[in-house]
């Protein structure tokens, strides 16, 4: 029995962060959808407007944070789902690595894109 548990508990933290990010995402995602589909219609989006929006530092930061939380939430969610399906051992480590790389890549690319949008690059 003793080998069943350890004091290292990634599960708890992951679970907790998944909830926290979810709570944050509710707000931003709703805002995002509203802004880009109902206030400004998606088919009218132009680089010009995007640039204008992104130059507002508050909006910019919100979007970056949105990206980071969504990426974490999504990737962590996928990871948990796979682990729940009984992923074990090396497989599990590989999946974790792949997902982490994908997540970090996504965030990096996203930030790069965001920076180009607000003209910093």
């Amino acid at each position: 029995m003793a080998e069943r548990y350890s004091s290292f508990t990634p599960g708890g933290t992951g679970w907790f962060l998944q909830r926290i990010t979810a709570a944050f995402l509710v707000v931003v995602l709703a805002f995002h959808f509203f802004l880009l589909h109902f206030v400004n219609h998606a088919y009218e989006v132009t680089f010009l407007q995007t640039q204008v929006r992104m130059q507002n530092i508050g909006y910019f930061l919100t979007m970056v944070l949105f990206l980071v939380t969504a990426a974490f939430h999504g990737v962590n969610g996928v990871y948990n789902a796979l682990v729940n399906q009984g992923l074990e051992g090396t497989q599990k480590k590989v999946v974790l690595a792949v997902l982490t790389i994908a997540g970090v890549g996504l965030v990096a690319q996203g930030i790069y894109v965001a920076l180009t949008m607000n003209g910093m690059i």
Partner: protein
Amino acid sequence: MSTQQAEPESQEAPEDPEMKGAESPQERRLEEKDDGMVDERAEKTAELEGETVLIKVFRYDPEVADKQEPRFDDFHVPFTKGMTVLDAVMYARDEYDSSLTFRHSCRQAVCGSDAFFVNGRQRLGCKTQISDLEQPVRIEPLPHQEVVKDLVVDMDHFYDQMHTVEPYFQDEDTPPVEDLEEQRQSPENREKIKMSSRCIWCGACMSSCNIAAGDNEYLGPAAINKAYKFAMDDREGEEIKEHRLRILEQEHGVWRCQTQFSCTEVCPKDIPLTEHIQELKREAVKKNLKFW
């Protein structure tokens, strides 16, 4: 007539004040009553009276040639008022086929031996009225457990999971006889663990849980609930509670639960399992936050 007297003795609970706490499942049943569920049953009973009911029972026996390939056997059982699923299979066994095998003992929902998969749901045979079910009644062994024979499944894994959470008081044992005193516990605290302490180890919850089906090491709702009973009991010290939480927040512990609620729905003892699991998740997070 020397021994003829009013003898108000009683074995059963005269009046249990604790049963009154208007729990939600009880309320639910009362609602059903209001919704006419019960009248429906009366109608169905009247319909069935004098009829036979068809039960289709899963059969399998690794040792008997024509039962090695699982199959369903049909039994026509004469319906009597108040007949339960367990009554029906017992009738089928005693009258038609004495090799029909299933566990059962108390016939009153306390021993937890006869959880079956009846019409697609985990139910206690002795606590399920035939008249509440669609005909024909399909009776199978509990899903996600290996079938030993007919309706008998291997319960060892379930027992193992129950034992994993160290289901016993950890405090020192017996008080010295001189100071014969109980530990104090507030009625509120006792109330808090009341529902969790009603588990009869029937395994219905575990069998209904998709997660437990996919992950054999998942503690499962019953074991977590068992741990809840101890973790929430104030008679055990803080340190022991932390130890219990450590067991629960292991990889295959509480986090595995995806709040599917099917455990709570099938539990014949109306234990709010999901609620207990969720509470433990929060407790575990709280405990971890403290260390940050």
